């Protein structure tokens, strides 16, 4: 465990070198909030509520959802894994006396931990700049459930991106697949619009999949909605994590045999 904590610490410190990039990443979260502000501002000019959301609760949803989404840095790690495999540099990870998956998870956790405070500051800045009447629950149990869901969600995203990354053993270039995945994930996790706007039947189906619980449900919980779904969400997301863990272990075991360490 200690070696993974050290890995996370190194990556945490390494972010200081890229402070300008990090600052931009945080500042650019404004585009999501601005989109919500403009789009939903126009819609709420004609009506007071949309699918149970008022204008302040809608903006609060986007600010929280954007905050959670920014914490997830695993897509970059997935891309890094694929690039290292393609170039033949993955060998340096194989020789490390650590689990490769947990090594990359620790790396990503280090980056996310660094971003945490900046994202929080950005969220506060957007609340102030867009003069949002911010809505947040004060129920400790609900906040705790949301935090557990966020952690499980981050782990799930890491597992999924790791899986796509190691597919490079077979396909070499997984960048197209990864970009399509990013587009789909943005929609199904509720980053673009709250999933409550979708037809009830589709939402029911989405509840069986992990994406519903990655950022949508925690955001809803934090604005004081959908409290009854918290426990089921934690159980379902934990099951998906376990399933993906098995899938990743089996896939890595099978595909690593194709790795020649030469690169292209």
């Amino acid at each position, binding site marked *: 465990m200690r070696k993974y904590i050290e890995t996370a610490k190194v990556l945490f410190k390494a972010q200081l070198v890229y402070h300008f990039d990090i600052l931009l990443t945080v500042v*650019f979260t404004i585009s999501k909030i601005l989109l919500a502000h403009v789009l939903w501002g126009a*819609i709420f000019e*004609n*009506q007071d509520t949309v699918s149970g959301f008022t204008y302040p609760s809608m903006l609060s949803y986007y600010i929280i959802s954007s905050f959670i989404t920014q914490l997830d840095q695993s897509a970059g790690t997935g891309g890094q894994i694929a690039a290292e495999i393609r170039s033949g540099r993955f060998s340096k990870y194989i020789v490390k006396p650590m689990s490769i998956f947990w090594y990359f998870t620790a790396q990503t956790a280090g980056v996310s931990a660094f971003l945490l405070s900046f994202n929080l500051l950005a969220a506060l800045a957007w609340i102030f700049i867009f003069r949002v009447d911010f809505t947040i629950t004060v129920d400790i149990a609900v906040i705790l459930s949301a935090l557990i869901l966020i952690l499980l969600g981050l782990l799930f995203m890491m597992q999924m991106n790791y899986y796509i990354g190691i597919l490079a053993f077979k396909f070499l270039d997984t960048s197209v697949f990864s970009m399509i995945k990013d587009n789909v994930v943005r929609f199904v996790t509720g980053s673009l619009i709250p999933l409550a706007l979708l037809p009830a039947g589709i939402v029911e189906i989405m509840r069986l999949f992990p994406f519903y619980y990655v950022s949508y449900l925690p955001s809803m919980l934090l604005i004081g909605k959908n409290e009854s779904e918290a426990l089921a969400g934690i159980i379902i997301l934990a099951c998906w994590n376990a399933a993906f863990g098995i899938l990743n272990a089996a896939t890595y075991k099978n595909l690593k045999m194709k790795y020649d360490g030469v690169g292209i």
Partner: protein
Amino acid sequence: MNIYKHLKIIWMLLKMKLARTMAFRFTFFGAFFVDGSMFLIQILMFNAIYSQTGSIGGWDKQQMLLFIGTFSLINAVNMAIYFFGVITIPWKIKSGDLDLYITKPVNTLFHISFENIDIGSVPLIFASLGIIAYAVSGMNVQITFWRVSGYFLLVGMMLILYYDMEVIMRTIPFFVIQASSIERFEGEAVTLCMKIPGTLFKGAFKVLFYLVLPYGIMATVPAQFFAGTLTPAGFLYSMCIVAAFTAFTLAFWKLGLKHYKSASS
């Protein structure tokens, strides 16, 4: 140089690009699938929103679909023709590879712009035309030759504007070498403006996306023209913006080339 010679060069560059692309067949239609999925999701998003409301800032569902289809079309033609060429400019400046282009008896910007034509993006053009046709079929407008011609003329003008913006952003590295943050900023601005019509912006954001970085007019103006909501002043304004930005792009590029130090880093 005459047009025939330019077309011959484009044809030659296309053949060379095809030969290179065939080596990576898996990614041949990459841009089509990536951008196709993005616009499909945008349609799904607005479908969900319009199930809750009848209009967004005066844009009904069919008009919004036309807006999305128009941006998708502009983006697809951009990807197919010059995007993959223009995006290489910062790297060529940074690495000193631009030397190879400057010494050739072809206009440097022309050569770079057309050397990476992406045939894989062409299906996205047809998909976009499909979205536009579907949107128009549900609109209560009379389809005339002039309306269609005016629409495609405006799309053509906006393609020039899109090209201008891409070149301007990638000419900055002549002066600052490392400009990845500018490209990221461009990406965020384009993504934002392809999601909502420019007319929804107000105040400082309207000035930003209508004048300073006119991404806000790119799909909005042609869609407004087709829907019959574009005023003559709006039409004239967009023409002036395209002319002004094109003149600025050419002058800025020339200045950038003069500033080029031919030193890789």
